[in-house]
């Protein structure tokens, strides 16, 4: 500890603490303007300068570390005069447009002038009056309001890793410029701007900050679930902000979080129930749904009825949905789109590790010594995870190993990038395991204690043929060895895997080899972590709620706990139950006659054309959603649901943290909260009166499951409920023997999410659509040359399932033999080409 005196107060702080931080500890206020805690100090404004006895010049408190025995003075006549004069200099030629400036009311420059009593202007200079930059999408830059604090530059470079913004030119002409091609439109430059320099175009001139009400909420675009504030007025969301303090995302947002809100008040929202394609009242719609359920049930039994829950809905809504189906309708034919991804990871993790999701909190990623990202693009699938990885790798000295078929945004920070050939993920994971064993990098004692089948594990690893691994993956031995060394030599290991693993064919097996790697690398220790990513916001929640036939809420086996729930719900529960694949087959077989899709669009499912045909065939189709689609066109009844802004509820993030939020605006038009719709149907079907209450549902979930660790509910704005820490018990880990290898042949088309969009919802938000209006097909230079296409050309892709046409983007991020296309755009139609439940397929390509 270092001892020093600040304005006569003694303080003792750790080495490397700055004078500014030390002063805060003893409540000495030092004015700042350019200082932003979450980025490196800039030291640009100079107003935090303080005097230190024996040092013959003022030192800036923000970036001067403490020294033993120093005597600091923060207030003196000279300092005050200097601070005021520097502020006067900053204000030389600062425009007097405060009344119409977007920052009015939340301007740090105004506040600091006020605080320091800067009331006159001694200095004058010619006004270089740089022009406003208006040609950037979504963001306007007004350079003459800029104080060049570089907060925007630093957030862009240090936290997001986009490296788009930079200071251009010299002297008074200097301004913040942008390499537009690098911009990810995360809007953090706008958030951190202390003045009205960086402006959100969609928000500009729409509302004064003080007229907006900030409602604490949770972003549901992805499972990192950043904590946000919906800024609302007149039943409309005007913008989204996030606090640096008290949020896991430290105020950072992505394009979805910052700009993606506008789908909420999109004019195309479904605002009225529809029956037989005609507008109808809620009463008529409910009557029709209930009548059809009762009719089909009477004719064919409840097993002829099936439904889909959704990761877009709250925990409470999903709970009600499964209860509606199981208790009120009497059918266990329920599932979600997680069947094609997260469900597989869950199965593998449950079997091998006894885990029902991630093993640790997101924060632990930021503290890891090494992060292994396997078959995931965190930037696109869960941006909040990307930022934590950058915390680890760029700020905390951690190393990054990426195993991916493509180069991703994070590749630039990787110490090792293993670009493996399509179809060789299992080989690579096994190869890494073998090398960890061979190179003496396993923690034998720990494995002995925790793994139940250690002998099998060793025998299995010893049987891995490294030459075959090298041939299958197309990687050099040195590169795999280097990666194994990096992983094996680290103490705190975070393993992250995503869509390329769990959404692909053999997804459960692939997830299992990752679970094995987690065992071998020590990632399951309390300071490491294993993190399956799913792109959808509340996937963890929908799985927690048991919206699939195998389990009841809280991962309680349906078969084994049926009676407990039947008793609690005062009903009898059906036997069996169909999952998504079963439902599809039974629709095709004419056995499932009634399908209820809540916040689910099967056009984004793999082999979507098969699904579309099935939907055309099903006798009664109820679609509960917020936007019109090809599916609503087919529906017998359309029920307009609502977005998260319009409801109260809770979501569960990928690290199993549960956060509650309150309704920010009323449901638009006649739309209703989805929970209310389920409750109404439940009431009508069970002939009881049920009103939807979030609190009651939450309480019921708590009672029937052990999901919510009530002891760890925080007293914060979102009643954050942290998961119980995962502890590896003795002999509790099961190494899973996976030998299947699924090599592929020919050119592969891989689908995944674009980093500019989230599911299909963001394609209804004007801002993300402005920067990425359509899905492009990424093709390597070599494959493009072979097909004779250049950027912008149309490319026809044909698989065994059919063909579709997309616009080409030649990209260095895909290797020869692999093309990548986003599945966010239904119009691009790549999901039609996929086989059932897969995300990659052999295709032939030709220029159109």
């Amino acid at each position, binding site marked *: 500890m270092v001892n020093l005196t600040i304005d006569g107060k003694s303080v003792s702080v750790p080495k490397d603490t700055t004078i500014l931080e030390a002063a805060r500890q003893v409540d000495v206020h030092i004015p700042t303007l350019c200082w932003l805690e979450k980025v490196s100090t800039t030291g640009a404004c100079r107003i935090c300068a303080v005097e230190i006895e024996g040092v013959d*010049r003022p030192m*800036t408190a923000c970036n001067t570390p403490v020294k033993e025995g120093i005597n600091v003075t923060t207030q003196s006549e000279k300092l005050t005069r200097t601070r005021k004069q520097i502020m006067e200099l900053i204000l030389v030629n600062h425009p007097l447009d405060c009344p119409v400036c977007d920052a009015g009311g939340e301007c740090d420059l105004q506040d600091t002038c006020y605080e320091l009593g800067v009331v006159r202007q001694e200095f004058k200079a010619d006004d270089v009056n740089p022009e406003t930059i208006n040609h950037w999408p979504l963001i306007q830059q007004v350079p003459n309001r800029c104080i060049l604090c570089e907060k925007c530059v630093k957030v862009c470079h240090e936290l997001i890793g986009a490296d788009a913004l930079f200071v251009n030119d010299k*002297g008074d002409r200097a301004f913040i410029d942008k390499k537009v091609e690098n911009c990810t439109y995360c809007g953090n430059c706008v958030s951190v701007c202390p003045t009205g320099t960086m402006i959100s175009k969609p928000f500009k001139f729409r509302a004064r900050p003080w007229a907006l009400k900030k409602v604490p909420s949770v972003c549901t675009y992805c499972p990192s679930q950043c904590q946000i504030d919906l800024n609302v007025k007149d039943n409309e969301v005007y913008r989204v902000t996030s606090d640096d303090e008290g949020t896991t995302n430290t105020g950072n947002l992505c394009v979805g979080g910052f700009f993606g809100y506008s789908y909420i008040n999109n004019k195309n929202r479904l605002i009225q129930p529809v029956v037989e394609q005609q507008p109808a009242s809620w009463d008529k719609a409910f009557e029709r749904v209930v009548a059809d359920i009762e009719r089909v049930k009477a004719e064919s039994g409840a097993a002829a009825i099936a439904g889909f829950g959704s990761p877009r809905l709250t925990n409470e809504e999903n709970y009600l949905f499964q209860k509606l189906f199981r208790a009120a309708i009497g059918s266990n034919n329920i599932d979600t789109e997680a069947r094609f991804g997260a469900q597989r990871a869950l199965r593998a993790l449950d079997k091998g590790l006894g885990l029902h999701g991630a093993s640790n909190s997101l924060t632990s990623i930021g503290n890891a010594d090494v992060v292994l990202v396997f078959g995931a693009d965190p930037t696109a699938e869960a941006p909040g995870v990307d930022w934590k990885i950058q915390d680890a790798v760029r700020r905390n000295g951690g190393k990054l190993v990426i195993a991916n078929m493509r180069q991703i945004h994070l590749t630039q920070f990787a110490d090792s990038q293993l670009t493996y050939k399509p179809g060789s993920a299992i080989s690579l994971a096994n190869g890494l395991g073998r090398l960890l064993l061979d190179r003496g990098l396993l923690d034998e004692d720990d494995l002995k204690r925790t793994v139940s089948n250690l002998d099998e594990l060793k025998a299995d690893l010893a049987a891995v043929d490294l030459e075959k691994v090298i041939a299958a993956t197309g990687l050099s031995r040195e590169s795999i060895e280097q990666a194994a060394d990096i992983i094996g030599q680290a103490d705190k290991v975070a393993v992250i895997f995503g869509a390329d693993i769990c959404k692909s064919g053999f997804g459960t097996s692939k997830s299992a080899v990752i679970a094995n790697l987690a065992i071998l690398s020590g990632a399951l220790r309390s300071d490491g972590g294993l993190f399956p990513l799913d792109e959808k916001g509340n996937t963890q929640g929908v799985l927690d709620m048991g919206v699939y036939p195998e389990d009841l809420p809280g991962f309680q086996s349906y078969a084994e706990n049926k009676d407990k729930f039947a008793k609690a719900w005062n009903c009898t529960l059906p036997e069996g139950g169909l999952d998504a694949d079963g439902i599809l087959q039974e629709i095709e077989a004419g056995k499932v006659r009634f399908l209820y899709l809540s916040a689910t669009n099967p056009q984004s499912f793999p082999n979507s054309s098969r699904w579309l045909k099935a939907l055309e065939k099903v006798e009664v189709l109820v679609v509960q959603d917020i936007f019109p689609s090809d599916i609503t066109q087919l529906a017998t009844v359309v029920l307009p649901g609502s977005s998260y802004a319009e409801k109260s509820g809770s979501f569960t993030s990928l690290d199993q943290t549960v956060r509650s939020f309150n309704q920010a605006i009323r449901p638009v038009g006649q739309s209703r909260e989805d929970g209310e719709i389920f409750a109404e149907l439940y009431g009508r079907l069970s002939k009881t009166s049920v009103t939807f209450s979030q609190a009651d549902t939450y309480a019921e979930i708590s009672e029937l499951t052990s999901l919510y660790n009530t002891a760890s509910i925080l007293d914060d704005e979102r009643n954050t409920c942290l998961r119980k820490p995962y502890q590896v018990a003795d002999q509790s880990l099961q190494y899973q023997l996976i030998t299947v290898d699924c090599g592929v042949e020919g050119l592969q088309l891989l689908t995944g999410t674009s980093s500019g969009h989230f599911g299909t919802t963001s394609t209804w938000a004007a801002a993300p659509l402005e920067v990425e209006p359509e899905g492009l097909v990424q093709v390597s230079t070599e494959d493009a040359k072979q097909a004779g296409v250049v950027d912008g050309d149309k490319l026809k892709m044909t698989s065994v399932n059919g063909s579709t046409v997309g616009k080409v983007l030649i990209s260095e991020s895909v290797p020869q033999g692999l093309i990548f296309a986003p599945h966010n755009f239904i119009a691009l139609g790549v999901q039609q080409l996929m086989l059932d439940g897969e995300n990659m397929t052999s295709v032939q390509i030709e220029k159109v």
Partner: protein
Amino acid sequence: MSQVAFSSWGRQVIDNRQGGDTEVEVAKKKLPVTFDGEKQISAFMGWDGLILNDPNVDVVAMAAEYAKHVQEDYCCAKCSPGKKGTRVMQDTLARIVSGKGEESDLDTIENIGELLQNCKCTLCMTSAIPIVDTVKHFRDDYLAYIRGENKEKKAVDYKLKMTAPCQDKCPSHIDIPAYIEAIKDRRFDESLDIIRESMPLPAICGRVCPHPCETACRRANVDSPINIMVLKRTASDYEWKHNHHPLMQPKPKKDKTIAIVGAGPAGLAAAYYLALEGYPCTIYETLPEGFGGGMIAVGIPAYRMPRHILQRDIDIICSMGVEIVYDTKVGRDVSLMELKEKFDAVLLAPGAHKSKPMGVEGEEEGYSGFLEGGIEFLREAYMGKPTGMGKKVCVVGGGNTAIDCVRVALREGAEDSILLYRRTRKEMPADVWEIDGADEEGVQFEFLVLPKKIVVNDQRQVTGVECLKMELGEPDDSGRRRPQPIEGSEFVVECDTLIPAIGQDPDLSFITEDTGIKITRWNTVVTKYIPLKNAADRDLNDEMGNPLSRTLLTDMDGVFASGDAEIGPLTVVACVGNAHRAAKVIQRWLEEGEAYLTDEDFHEDILSNLGVYDKDEDVPWLDAVQRFDQHEIHGKERASSGNYNEVELGFSDSEAIMEAERCLRCYRVSMIAI
């Protein structure tokens, strides 16, 4: 009479305007009389004041011009007082010069001058110093402007240059503050890009540079210098560790071609800069493929400079369109005249690969165990060839090569590795850290000894070396105390191997007489220069005694020389700086038919001679963070037989950032009126 009318340089005011002839030391000794051999320097304005040679120079206009350039061309704008303060300064001075000034403007200038002391770095801060000096000492000139009474003064031309003490001291003139700031900003690739603008072998100079820059680091005036070299290594290592591609883009290919003799630091650096400009270069290298790099390869052992990292820098240069023809000795396999015929220009950069004779009895006898020299020994060890070394090795010399030899001897399996030096440890020209490294590895030192005679047995095998004991006498020209033999003090140091490592020479036998290229008596190539003299009428020379400003053109048109063979055996960084200039001059010669130096070149040389660093400057700063040294493998095992693993391990990124944060960014602007 003094040449100077007024000077405030070094914060010491000397005013000869009203008569008087007080000398100004700096102006008399360090500044040339002319800027470029012709144009007289009439005034000099910079970070430490004003030197006015010609009293007819308009000092007010000069201050206004200086302020304008500081604000418009150099101010980085990254702190408020700098960005806005220099703007107010510029406009206030401009107002005065345009006749619209008021007397209160002079107070504003002094006020801004004071506010600029709060700047983040020293660029704008030091720019205020000469300006405020003019207001203080030339107030009447200002008032004349303000009152509309100023008289027409002598028309002058201004030359400006931004520099920094470290950048000036670096023979390659790397923009050190900029690359350190990029590291501070966590922009490692950008940092490396800045380094490459003046240093195309960053991995090497990040490891083995004697870093003269650190002897001119102003942070040393606070506590200790910034670890500039290891920061360079950090930027360089970041690129290869993350598999990033270098950022620079060579220009489209041009027609004219250049042949380069020698793939050492000078040859590679010249090729890099010429290739960047689009010129195809062909380097002829005596050694076989895999041993490119000249003295960096065969003269610097792999524990200091791992081969694969050196090779990466070479590969990058080759990827820019440079061809290296290995195993080809100019003068043996191809003649210089043939190269002259085949290529549009030729650069001679053969290096200095021949050991100097030691002058001991028996040296010429071809005894077994007496090796040719240190450089040859290092080369053979590096190439994995038999070195002829035994178990008990004596190396004679006190430079870095001698140290490399004793340390390599251990790694080649020597049981005893002994260094013989005629002065004491303190006088050794080798870098301190190298001597310490040898010490740690178990090298034995014999100081104050002079080898006299090689002792052999009847098989003509070396068994020892007879030496005289020495004592230190009066200091010689180099300032080191001259060693003197003690009569009758002969004694024998037992050994089976004796390696002389007292210096090296270029082998210039390939430069035949018919070329007309002259060779100096120190066995270096003579090149053209522009004579610069100081006010005391003495020629200005560089540290090696060469004329200060050389075009590097030899006596044969189209043939240039660079590196150790031009400068005299020196350092990698000196060769690179020299080769960079050669590349620029070659380009001018190819494009304009004339080998000349630009104003920028002259300004650079003038500042180098003047010196930008002042070790006596009082630098007020809180010494809260001490210099951080890189990680290193310790213990004798690091020098065990066959162990050539790198000894120094560099910084982690966050350590580098912390070290970079210590940098005071000592930029300053020089303006010369001619």
